[in-house]
């Protein structure tokens, strides 16, 4: 609800203005902001009717403990409060869309059942927002109604067929209709996701060659050669967008390939400390090419199991799989901010800035694949993000020649510039996974 709550700090107003800029709209015509991540909606939609009945049953058995008083209603102090009532047989009777603008709807469930109540765009069925209320429950829902848009309320009460309110058209001063953007279907996202799998397969093949070269250098006792081969192979891994095996990418295997010693009993001495960072530790901290050779053999065995079939299993064409994949648009860089820019995952190579460059490349691949879907919803997001990612690369390059400059040895000003450029790009990228709702229907 980043841009939909009403009681906002001044900082958020700035952010909201930034969004209007991305949308190519003025303050009076903010863009539609669907909410929630696909995972949640997909699960909620499939399980809702079942669960609502189950919860209602439990509630009936437990008496009327949860009906009655409203939740804190502090958000409404500065917004127009519009009552919306739902009953056993009624769904927002008398619903008439007011003028365009920001509203807080005071929703009350007068029935004795659990109710999922949603505000949706007529025609496309895109859910603007929704609340789930117990019997007698009251809640608020904040939403931006767009000029020329058409809206309705959907009421799903446990054990009853879904009801829909009347359609209400928000007047448009220019008399023009602003078309709603339909949700993206799973079939539409499947294409880019399949292309992303091929992108990953290609990088993994390159990485196997680089690791084989690393093994050769390490076995020959060539420390410098091994270090340079390690750097190349590790950057390839990062370009896949799977830094530190975060977000469950490749599961436990991902952690074994690129996890740090954090959380392991014994730290760097732990037998479970494996993969790229263990090798980095062997080479830069222990200066031991023979240990590196042993650990490279182990790493090669791990990465060899990342066949195209394994990649496909890790990036499944399910709704939840697609939702998880979409998160990478911003989470690759979130990882970089947390681990690389804090140098928390450095074991001696001082390659954090180079890692960041690879993370940017992975993020750019995501943007390239998703650009048509993003642009249809937030017209200027992709060019803005591209500009900000270029500024980030420029800030990294400005830190000096070569790439083995440690974060800690940068001047305060250089660090601030890199941090600022990362923060700017992240703020732009964060909404992407909220904007693209796969197969989201009412």
């Amino acid at each position, binding site marked *: 609800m980043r841009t939909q709550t009403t009681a906002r700090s001044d900082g958020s107003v700035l952010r909201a203005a930034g969004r209007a800029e991305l949308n190519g709209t003025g303050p009076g015509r903010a863009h539609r902001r669907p909410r929630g991540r696909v995972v949640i909606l997909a699960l909620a939609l499939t399980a809702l009717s079942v669960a609502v009945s189950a*919860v209602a049953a439990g509630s009936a058995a437990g008496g009327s403990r949860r009906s009655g008083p409203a939740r804190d209603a502090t958000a409404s102090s500065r917004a127009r409060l519009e009552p919306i009532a739902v009953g056993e047989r009624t769904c927002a009777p008398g619903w008439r869309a007011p003028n365009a603008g920001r509203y807080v709807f005071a929703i009350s469930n007068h029935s004795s059942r659990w109710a999922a109540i949603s505000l949706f765009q007529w025609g496309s069925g895109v859910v603007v927002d929704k609340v789930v209320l117990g019997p007698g429950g009251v809640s608020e829902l904040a939403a931006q109604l767009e000029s020329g848009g058409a809206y309705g309320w959907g009421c799903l009460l446990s054990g009853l067929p879904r009801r829909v309110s009347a359609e209400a058209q928000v007047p448009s001063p220019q008399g023009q209709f602003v078309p709603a953007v339909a949700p993206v279907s799973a079939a539409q996202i499947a294409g880019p996701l399949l292309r992303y799998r091929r992108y990953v397969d290609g990088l993994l093949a390159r990485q196997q060659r680089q690791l084989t070269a690393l093994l050769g250098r390490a076995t020959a006792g060539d420390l410098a050669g091994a270090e340079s081969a390690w750097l190349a192979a590790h950057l390839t891994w990062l370009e896949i967008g799977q830094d530190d095996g975060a977000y469950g990418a490749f599961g436990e295997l991902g952690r074994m390939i690129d996890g740090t010693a954090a959380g392991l009993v014994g730290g760097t001495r732990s037998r479970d400390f494996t993969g790229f960072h263990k090798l980095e530790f062997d080479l830069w901290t222990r200066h031991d090419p023979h240990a590196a050779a042993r650990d490279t053999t182990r790493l090669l065995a791990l990465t060899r199991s990342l066949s195209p079939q394994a990649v496909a299993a890790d990036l499944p064409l399910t709704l939840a799989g697609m939702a998880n994949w979409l998160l990478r648009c911003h989470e690759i860089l979130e990882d970089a901010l947390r681990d690389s820019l804090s140098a928390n995952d450095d074991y001696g190579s001082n390659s954090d800035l180079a890692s960041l460059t690879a993370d940017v490349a992975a993020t750019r691949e995501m943007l390239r694949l998703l650009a048509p879907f993003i642009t249809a919803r937030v017209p200027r997001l992709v060019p803005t993000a591209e500009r900000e990612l270029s500024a980030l690369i420029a800030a990294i390059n400005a830190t000096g020649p070569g790439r083995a400059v440690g974060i800690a040895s940068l001047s305060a000003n250089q660090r601030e510039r890199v941090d600022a450029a990362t923060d700017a790009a992240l703020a732009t990228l964060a909404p992407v996974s909220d904007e693209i709702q796969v197969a989201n229907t009412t």
Partner: protein
Amino acid sequence: MSINRRRFLTQAGLGAITATTAGSRLLDSGNALAAAGNDRDPLSADGPLAVEALADPAAALGPVPFHGPWQAGILTAPQPAACFASFDVFAENRAALVDLLRSLTGIARFLTGGGAPENLGPTAPPSDSGTLGPIVPADGLTITVSVGSTLFDSRYGLASRKPLHLKAMPSFPNDNLDPAQTGGDVLLQICAGSADTAIHALREIARQTYGVMQIRWRLDGLVAPARPSGVPRNHLAFKDGIANPNVDDPVVGNQLLWVTDGIGEPEWAVGGSYHVCRIIKMFIEFWDRVSLTEQQQMIGRFRDSGAPLDGHLESDIPDYRADPHGAVIPLNAHIRLANPRTSETDPSRIYRRGYNYDRGVDRNGNLDMGLIFNAFQQNLERQFEATQRRLVGEPMVDYVSPVGGGYFFALPGVQTAEDWYARGLIED
């Protein structure tokens, strides 16, 4: 010293006296300044006070009783300000350790009761730093002393008397513990009505124990006021501590909080409690880029009201039996994993008394903020560790990172004016 310099000092002194005697000085200051300007160089005259004290801070919170079967600062409702300081002990032998514990008891007894510090005469430095004024206010101060497993190593011959479950805090799968802010021989949890009272207490304790114990790590905490009501919020903006067991009830306290007779613990430990303190960094920038829906699904509560996702009020009890598939409160939501509310998991409930912290900026330019997770329980393994194992891999782990803290044992209370901390541990 020039004449001008001396004149400045005189006037500054006068200004201070005026400030303490005239409650409404801000209102009068304009006139006072105008009057002073008549016969003085305006450049040398004092201006109005920038800040006027709103109330007598000493009146804010009264003294918390120091003596009792268990220490204050555990059942005590959390005071607004806290200072957590972990020390390593350098006492040369067991006798020196006894001296340390007796002095610590004396300082804590005096500071928590308040009063006039001893006058050591004109030749010694003052006995009190004086930052709280000439009379030390109690201000709700509590000083809770806990000991780490390292105190029971070979140094003082206490190994055989170690509480059964006390050990070094292990690294859990999502931890990122920094040795420089983990562990320690003694942990002081200092809580008070205001931050200056807490830091004054730490300062007095540190300077009166110099050479015998040394600060290993330290972190200040605060409890936010209710926003707008109910349980205070943490830095993720969610109300934290709603589901605390009612340990004020002696029956509950004896099952969940206090070490009691007959549970296999050494006799001296009765009235003590296992104290888990964990510094949990929160990635609030990342958190702020997540939709409210997702935030609430991760926690399992509504952010604004604190109610569970199947309820309306923060006091509502989530009904997981009515939601077996996690459609309303996801199966991996924090509150559901932490406290599944079954008869099997109820004995693992822990009593939390946490504080928010905020300490500057991280290396990557993010705000360094988080939670001082602070919990007391009867049995480390049955309670904290069981809860922690359930939470491994929860979705929230991407947004938080435990970076320090430790396992400690909160000593039993100091019972009388002759008693001292850990007397039962060392004397019997």
